[in-house]
């Protein structure tokens, strides 16, 4: 739109949009309002360059941008108005923050002279989001706008990624100044470490070569740093078994012989036994979350720990680490591969040392696989397996929160990074569907499924209108148990089946609801109907809601009760 060499005087609105283009933004998720009307007016002139997706609720915009970011690896961008528009994004921002997802949230603000005045639609969104953003800004002078946007994208996408918010008072959007997009950012106080310390890396390798019962404990950092290929090469070179957190799923192929499943509260028997019995655990882009460790003081008590993470503050937070390595997962794995290239003989002989360990793991796997019993009613696990079969493991799966999320994690075999979108840290019900919308926009050619619960889906069901408007063929599979299933499960196990307010007695007819929105609704009540419904849904190039009426009181197993060591799983 403008020539690089010329300096132009522009309004703040135009500067904002030009800056977004400089950051290669071609899609934003938003919802207009008074404080951002100038920006929206300008946006119409940029229709060909920036696609604006009009959501139906600002929370939807934040989750959609998050899903877009997770699926594509790009920064997700949100544009909303001041006050309620901004506060509606907070759950989405906190969700992204907990899972380290790069996002830039642009919020309108009342004019500078009214700030602090309790003006109409004023909210101190910078104050509200301070603890759930990686950083946030308020623009006080239009001259700072371009630099701040540059900084925001840089901060959001580098180091440990995260959401960054920029609050823009309305008068700034109409003020003018010359526009020149800065080439570089210099933040004296922000210098993420990418390359791990050589000595530390050598220590990890020498421990690994010695270890008889090693385990790679991988997390979301593998996916965030695009390190799946390096991880696979590394694990194969030394024959290292891999177990993953929820967030790490897809970071290593689930059908790989070295993969032993998910760790933690609903992890596999083998993964939890592996970490409990390992002698050397290398945590890679994982953060020892309490859902993974169970009772922390006995967690992996026989093991030495190495921890590779770009965020020094996550190292040694919950567990004492013997060999900390601060650095980007991909960069560190590459260094390790380079070092190993000159130690191929040692690598080969070290593989011998763990034949017994791998055998043990395979035995556990054989004795206690993930399992469920078929019956006359649809089992949720069967449903997820069918989705896996029919999509050949190539779909992008988003989930809501609760049992649906855990069954999706257990029974869909994720092959590729960025193929599971789930709110791991915050556990946000209502995340999955808008995230699926964002993912479908990022990846138009992929099949995108939201595996949902009948409770969660109602938390952002309004986005069905968005999916219909933009003709996004997202598939929603509702695991309908007429319960807030995960709550019911806890009440069953720990509250003597006192089902206090966890039964969903009234829900809409999801098939009719889909139709009312102009989407397609399908229903299956029996196991033999599942495949047909899924096939039909996959053949329709429109958003489809599938209502799967499932066994009402099915539980997610294995389960580590809270406060119990993770080897103390309840099996089926």
């Amino acid at each position, binding site marked *: 739109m403008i020539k690089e060499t010329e300096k132009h005087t522009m309004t703040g609105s135009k500067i904002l949009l030009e800056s977004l283009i400089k950051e290669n933004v071609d899609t934003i998720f938003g919802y207009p309002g008074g404080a951002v009307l100038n920006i929206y007016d300008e946006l119409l002139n940029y229709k060909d360059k920036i696609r604006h997706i009009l959501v139906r609720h600002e929370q939807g915009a934040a989750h959609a941008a998050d899903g877009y970011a997770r699926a594509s690896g790009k920064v997700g961008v949100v544009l909303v108005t001041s006050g309620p528009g901004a506060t509606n994004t907070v759950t989405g921002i906190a969700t992204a923050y907990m899972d380290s997802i790069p996002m830039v949230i642009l919020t309108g603000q009342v004019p500078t002279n009214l700030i602090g005045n309790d003006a109409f639609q004023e909210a101190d969104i910078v*104050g509200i989001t301070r603890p759930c953003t990686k950083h946030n800004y308020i623009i006080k002078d239009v001259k700072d706008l371009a630099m701040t946007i540059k900084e925001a994208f840089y901060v959001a996408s580098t180091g440990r990624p995260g959401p960054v918010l920029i609050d823009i008072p309305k008068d700034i959007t109409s003020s003018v100044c010359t526009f020149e997009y800065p080439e570089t950012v210099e933040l004296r*106080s922000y210098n993420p470490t990418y390359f791990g310390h050589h000595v530390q890396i050598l220590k990890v390798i020498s421990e690994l070569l010695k270890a008889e019962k090693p385990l790679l404990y991988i997390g979301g950092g593998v996916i965030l740093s695009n390190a799946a290929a390096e991880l696979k090469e590394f694990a194969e070179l030394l024959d290292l078994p891999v177990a993953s957190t929820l967030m790490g799923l897809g970071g290593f192929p689930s059908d790989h012989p070295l993969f032993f499943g998910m760790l933690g509260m609903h992890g596999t028997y083998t993964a939890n036994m592996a970490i409990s019995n390992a002698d050397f655990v290398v945590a890679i882009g994982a953060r020892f979350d309490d859902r993974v460790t169970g009772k922390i003081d006995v967690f992996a008590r026989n093991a030495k720990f190495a921890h590779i993470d770009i*965020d020094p*503050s996550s190292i*040694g937070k919950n567990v004492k680490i013997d060999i900390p390595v601060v650095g980007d997962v991909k960069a560190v794995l590459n260094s390790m591969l380079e070092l190993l290239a000159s130690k191929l003989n040692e690598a080969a002989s070290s593989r011998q040392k763990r034949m017994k360990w791998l055998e043990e793991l395979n035995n556990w796997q054989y004795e206690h696989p993930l399992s469920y019993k078929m019956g006359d009613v649809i089992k949720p696990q069967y449903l997820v397996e069918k989705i896996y079969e029919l999509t050949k493991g190539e779909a992008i799966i988003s989930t809501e929160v609760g049992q649906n999320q855990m069954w999706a994690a257990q029974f869909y075999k994720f092959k590729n990074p960025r193929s599971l979108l789930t709110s791991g840290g915050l556990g946000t019900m209502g995340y999955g569907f808008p995230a699926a919308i964002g993912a479908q926009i990022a990846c138009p050619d992929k099949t995108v499924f939201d595996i949902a619960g009948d409770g969660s889906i109602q938390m952002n069901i309004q986005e069905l209108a968005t999916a219909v408007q933009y003709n996004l063929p997202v598939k929603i599979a509702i695991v309908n148990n007429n319960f807030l299933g995960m709550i019911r499960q806890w009440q069953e196990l720990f509250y003597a089946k006192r089902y206090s307010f966890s039964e969903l007695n009234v829900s809409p007819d999801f098939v009719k609801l889909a139709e009312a929105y102009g989407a397609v609704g399908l229903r299956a009540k029996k196991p033999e109907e599942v495949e047909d419904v899924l096939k039909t849904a996959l053949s329709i190039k429109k958003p489809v809601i599938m209502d799967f009426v499932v066994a009402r009181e099915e539980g997610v197993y294995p389960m580590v009760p809270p406060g119990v060591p993770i080897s103390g799983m309840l099996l089926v």
Partner: protein
Amino acid sequence: MEKSHILSILVENESGVLARVAGLFSARGFNIETICVAGTVEKKESKMIISTFGDEQILEQITKQLNRLINVIKVQELTDEESVVRQTILVRVNADESTKNEIFRIKDIFGARIIDAGRNTYIIEATGSEKKIDSLIEILKPLGIKDIAKTGQIAMQRSRKQA
């Protein structure tokens, strides 16, 4: 182990930095006992000196997270042994014929100054370690303290002594 700590935090002089830093402490249930914030030689920088009391491991965690804040340039823990630590106090005490002599005596002992003399009260200014300031308060109490204003503790690492 729970003990007192003093952190010296160099930050970029931007709005909201204090809130970000203080937020990290409160989020972990750490009380900030005293805090001093002021500019440095560099116009764009401020230094915060925070004294706090609590568990060493949690403090280490807070330190790491302080470093994670975008506006924080440097965080340093200042230990008692290696640093000089000072605090300044202003005390308004009753000053009538019966107490004046005692006030002058105390002032001399503590190397304090009388910086304001009213009809019935004096304002005493003193600088020193937290301990010294505390004992000054104790000694002045019987004379009748009307008001107190204390700065937080400020601290600086001692220069290296020659071998």
